[in-house]
């Protein structure tokens, strides 16, 4: 008998669904749905009590509407009411609705919890299972609080039915994942492990997921599961295909459970007990042997299930990495799969081999398959498989085959799918650097990379090639010659122009002896690309030109001519114009000696890095930075243009380029050397300050552009969402700060050392003008002595659709926790609008990144070991845990993201120094994601406790 006979539908539901399916257009569908929603709403609201059948019908309709992608904002109460029904049908539909539509934040949880409590204590296994399902599906913190104590009892109680046990195990797992702190280990833990021995395979299936998760977190407490898992596995593997009856799937005994047992064993090192280990090795050998036996069925499901176990067994062998014999067998088996006709197997074989390649026992064995893998990269129809092939080539690469693999990857790049090009480029660049025996090969490879896939070459890659060329004398001449040749191509990628400009600017003299690449030829070649390039590249080229004047005095007049032309000296782009003006002046005023000093060859990169590192090391305890060091730091920042050492790009081309940095940062530097901002400058702004402080409207520390008339009302309290808005800007500097129906506020900001400048853009979204538009920036309370904020006046009138800009200068005097307040008042059609926001100025904005090596990092970490210097938070991920996104956020934070420092590659570590006027605060960060539990652990250590705490608070909201 079929479990569901086709007839028992509900008529109303069937009619509704077929109506929807007959709708000719999206509009018609929405109309029909709205009609139905209105109908259901009135039925729910009506006085007449609905019978169970009708309730069920309406809830089913709502589910269908929800599935089509329409919001359902009612019916929750009705569903909760259904839970307390005694009828299975009603209860079940109520639970269904809740598990599909109620999220863990819902306010209804308390009511639902009550119903669940009743069902759990009902001793009716069906009701208990429904309740357990509901907990597992919603899995909220409130539920964990209510039931985390109860579920383990149900799970291990002697009289619990098997089906309830199964549900209880997974329910507990869910609660453990969402709120590990609430699920307390106890007497039940040892009994849970013994569920691996349970008679009922379903119970084992459910329990093993729970045990695996618990073992990962508390390996010692669950150690006993290893021997139990081995004996269970051994019993399954050695059973005949009919022994396990219903758990035999297409002639394979209990494949799912076998896979899970093998996964559980991967949480532990090889068993120490010789007997257990012997038994396990026997199992693994049996599994490998079975793969060679003729199949018991031709059905794909049979081979699927068999291979599922085989792949898990191979993973375990790779995980143990201690049985050379098994490793080689595993490798051979995967080798067979590499050529299998099933695409799935080829995919998985490539994937498993990637991990195998890192084992010393099997690395050589993996390498024998290189031709097959290269062939897969060239011929596989499926991009997923090709990507795995590329991964494997990367993993099996070593000094002996690097040239072949890099060449193959380069040639594949020419036709590679767009989706994987960027990753391929990075891999080629890394391999080329890692295995470069002679650096001319390296330079060739990277230039080829730019030629073939220039669009996908990220800045890091071309920065890196420049760093290496600068640091290695032996390759500089070759590099100059090669880029010169590469630039001959009629169309070459802009990244090539950047590398070319930089290298010829530094080392063009090394090839100037050859008349074919004389200084003027070099210059003309570079300049022929100039007009096709974007502004940053042009800026870089201008710097290369001034370097040319130093390297080759004979080019001076030609280059000065170029700089003097209107298209440079009157360029509409400030950056280009400023560079042209300053370089022109520099070349005409400065003597050869001065020029030679200012435009000296770039120093090698690591030394620059280590100077920052040494500075951080010098600092011992909290606040122990002498004034001298500080001054030194500042001067260095000024002279070397402050950019982080890694960013070997444009700005550092010339030591003197700080003289010509774009105007905002130049101003920033000027701000510091100029009169103290806190000492009231004789401007209109300062007069207003006095007016306000007398009126006592606000703290007297602020500077404002507001005319007196507008401040008759008090500033509104900050909007409730202003903290959230603040959090949005912790890791970025630009964006929309606030938007409502009338007004949009955009932000652009930049920070250098302890100074910042923020541009606020107020956009009038209406067609009516805003009058008496005033803004006030204030530093409330404690913030006043810590932060100095100066706002330039803003136009009091904003036309409809227009935008005005306001500049705010910020100086960080000491470390701080609060944010400055921005109050905005204006009249729109006569009504006064008054709103306050927090300005997104947070302590991390004053970070200077600090590069350091692993050893130094941990030494420094240990030095900051006082308890109050550390702040730690463990929190749930509120965004997808994507590595690239996390990296981007950490970089946005302003610290240096340190690679290869943490022994666990999943973790992120960062270092930086916060620059305030009073002192510098060194900070170290460690972020440990746990993808399994969707949790993070964030640890901050700084020389100052308030800084650790504040950074920790800010960052915990970001992931």
């Amino acid at each position, binding site marked *: 008998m*079929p*479990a*569901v006979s*086709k*007839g*028992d*539908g*509900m*008529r109303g*539901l*069937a009619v509704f669904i*077929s109506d929807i399916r*007959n709708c000719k257009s999206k509009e018609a569908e929405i109309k029909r749905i709205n009609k139905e929603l209105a109908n259901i709403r009135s039925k729910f609201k009506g006085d007449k009590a609905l*019978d169970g*059948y009708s309730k*069920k019908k309406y809830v089913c309709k709502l589910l*269908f509407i*929800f*599935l089509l992608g329409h919001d359902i904002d009612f019916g929750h109460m009705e569903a909760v009411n259904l839970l307390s029904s005694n009828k*299975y049908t009603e209860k*079940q*539909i109520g639970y*269904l609705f809740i598990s*599909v539509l109620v*999220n863990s934040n819902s306010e209804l949880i308390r009511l639902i919890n009550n119903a669940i409590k009743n069902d759990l204590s009902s001793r009716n296994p*069906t009701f208990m299972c429904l309740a357990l*399902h509901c907990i597992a*599906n919603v*899995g909220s913190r409130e539920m964990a609080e209510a039931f985390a104590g109860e579920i383990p009892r149900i799970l291990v109680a002697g009289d619990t039915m098997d089906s309830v046990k199964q*549900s209880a195990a*997974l*329910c507990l*797992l*869910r609660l453990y994942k969402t709120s590990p702190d609430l699920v307390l280990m106890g007497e039940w833990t040892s009994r849970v492990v013994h569920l691996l021995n349970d008679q009922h*395979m379903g119970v084992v*299936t*459910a329990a093993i997921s729970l045990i695996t998760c618990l073992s990962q977190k508390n390996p010692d407490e669950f150690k006993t599961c290893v021997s139990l898992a081995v004996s269970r596995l051994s019993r399954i593997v050695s059973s005949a295909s009919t022994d396990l009856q*219903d*758990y035999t*799937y297409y002639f394979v005994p209990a*494949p*799912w459970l076998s*896979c899970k047992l093998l996964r559980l064993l991967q949480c532990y090192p090889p068993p120490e007990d010789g007997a257990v280990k012997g038994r396990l090795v026997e199992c693994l050998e049996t599994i490998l042997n079975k793969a060679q036996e003729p199949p018991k069925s031709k059905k794909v*499901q049979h081979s*699927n*299930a068999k291979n*599922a176990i085989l*792949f898990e067994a191979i993973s375990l062998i790779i995980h143990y990495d201690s049985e050379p014999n098994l490793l080689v067998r595993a490798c051979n088996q995967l080798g067979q799969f590499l050529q299998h006709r099933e*695409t*799935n197997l080829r995919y*998985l074989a490539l994937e498993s081999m990637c991990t195998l390649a890192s084992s010393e026992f099997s690395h050589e064995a993996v390498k024998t398959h290189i031709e097959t893998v290269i062939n897969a990269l060239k011929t596989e*129809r*499926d991009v*997923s*498989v090709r990507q795995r092939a590329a991964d494997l080539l990367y993993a099996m690469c070593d000094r002996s085959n690097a040239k072949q693999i890099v060449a193959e990857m380069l040639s594949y790049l020419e036709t590679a799918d767009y989706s994987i090009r960027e990753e391929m480029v990075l891999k080629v660049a890394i391999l080329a650097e890692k295995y470069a025996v002679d650096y001319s090969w390296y330079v060739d490879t990277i230039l080829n990379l730019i030629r073939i896939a220039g669009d996908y070459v990220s800045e890091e890659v071309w920065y890196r090639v420049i760093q290496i060329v600068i640091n290695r004398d032996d390759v500089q001449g070759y590099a100059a010659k090669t880029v010169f040749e590469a630039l001959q191509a009629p169309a070459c990628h802009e990244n090539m122009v950047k590398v070319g400009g930089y290298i010829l600017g530094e080392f063009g003299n090394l090839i100037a002896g050859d008349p074919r690449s004389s200084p003027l030829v070099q210059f003309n070649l570079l300049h022929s690309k100039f007009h096709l390039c974007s502004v940053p590249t042009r800026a870089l080229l201008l710097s290369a030109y001034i370097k040319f004047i130093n390297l080759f005095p004979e080019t001076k007049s030609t280059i000065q001519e170029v700089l003097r032309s209107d298209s440079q000296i009157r360029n509409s782009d400030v950056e280009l114009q400023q560079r042209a003006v300053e370089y022109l002046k520099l070349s005409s005023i400065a003597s050869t000696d001065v020029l030679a000093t200012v435009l000296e060859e770039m120093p090698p990169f690591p030394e620059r890095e280590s100077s920052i590192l040494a500075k951080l090391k010098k600092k011992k305890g909290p606040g122990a930075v002498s004034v001298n060091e500080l001054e030194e730091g500042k001067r260095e920042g000024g002279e070397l243009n402050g950019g982080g050492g890694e960013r070997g790009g444009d700005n550092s081309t010339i030591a003197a380029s700080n003289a010509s940095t774009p105007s905002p940062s130049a101003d920033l530097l000027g701000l510091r050397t100029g009169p103290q901002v806190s000492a009231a400058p004789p401007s209109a702004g300062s007069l207003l300050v006095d007016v306000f402080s007398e009126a006592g409207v606000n703290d007297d520390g602020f500077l404002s552009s507001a005319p007196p008339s507008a401040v008759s009302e008090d500033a509104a309290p900050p909007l409730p969402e202003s903290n959230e808005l603040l959090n949005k800007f912790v890791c970025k500097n630009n964006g929309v700060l606030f938007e409502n129906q009338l007004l949009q506020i955009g932000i652009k900001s930049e920070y250098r050392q302890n100074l910042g400048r923020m541009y606020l853009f107020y956009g009038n979204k209406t067609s009516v003008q805003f009058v008496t538009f005033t803004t006030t920036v204030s530093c409330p309370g404690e913030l006043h002595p810590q932060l100095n904020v100066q706002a330039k006046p803003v136009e009091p009138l904003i036309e409809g659709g227009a935008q005005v800009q306001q500049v705010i200068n910020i100086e960080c005097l000491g470390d701080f926790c609060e944010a400055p307040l921005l109050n905005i008042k204006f009249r729109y059609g006569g009504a006064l609008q008054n709103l306050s926001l927090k300005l997104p100025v947070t302590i991390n904005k004053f970070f200077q990144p600090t590069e350091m090596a692993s050893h130094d990092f941990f030494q420094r970490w240990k030095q900051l070991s006082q308890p109050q210097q550390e702040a730690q938070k463990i929190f749930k991920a509120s965004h*997808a845990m*994507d590595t690239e996104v996390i990296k981007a956020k950490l970089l946005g934070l302003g610290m240096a993201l340190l690679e290869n420092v943490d022994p666990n590659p999943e973790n992120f570590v960062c270092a930086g120094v916060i620059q305030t006027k009073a002192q510098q605060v060194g900070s170290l960060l460690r972020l440990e994601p746990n*993808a*399994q539990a*969707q949790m993070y652990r964030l640890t901050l250590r700084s020389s100052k406790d308030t800084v650790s705490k504040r950074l920790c608070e800010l960052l915990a909201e970001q992931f």
Partner: protein
Amino acid sequence: MIKAILIFNNHGKPRLSKFYEHYTEDTEQQIIRETFHLVSKRDENVCNFLEGGLLIGGSDNKLIYRHYATLYFVFCVDSSESELGILDLIQVFVETLDKCFENVCELDLIFHMDKVHNILAEMVMGGMVLETNMSEIITQAEAQSKMEKSEAGIAGAPARAVSAVKNMNLPEMPKNINIGDISIKVPNLPSFK
């Protein structure tokens, strides 16, 4: 862990969506669309695994799918699951549906959404596998049907529903998942008042 189970047809119309992690309704719909877009453009006979879309967590997650006649069954899982194991699980799910509905077709999923959810709940709970034994799952489903029938109140409904289904004007007549035609049995029940 299984992050989500999605069933949609060849045109991307969702027929079942079950998320084991919390997303907003909007995101759920976007994930369904994104997944359909990723899966539907793949040829037949390529492999059944691919990296998940950005919305559901990018390359940390895999989409494992099977295409049966008019329907795609897609499981989005993290790295703790065996790919081939999940393929088997999809097969068990479909075979179970086929047994419970007698030659299941797309229409069955549409008109018996609650039942499909219940069957799935017997297999997967909170993103983890509860039971893989088909006969056990079917026994549970049958027990539920029995309980529903015994609770009356709905006794009269079926007959008319069946006629409604039969008379429906279906723009795209879906094919059976396994075998040719749709076969809807008309049970001999008292007519609806």
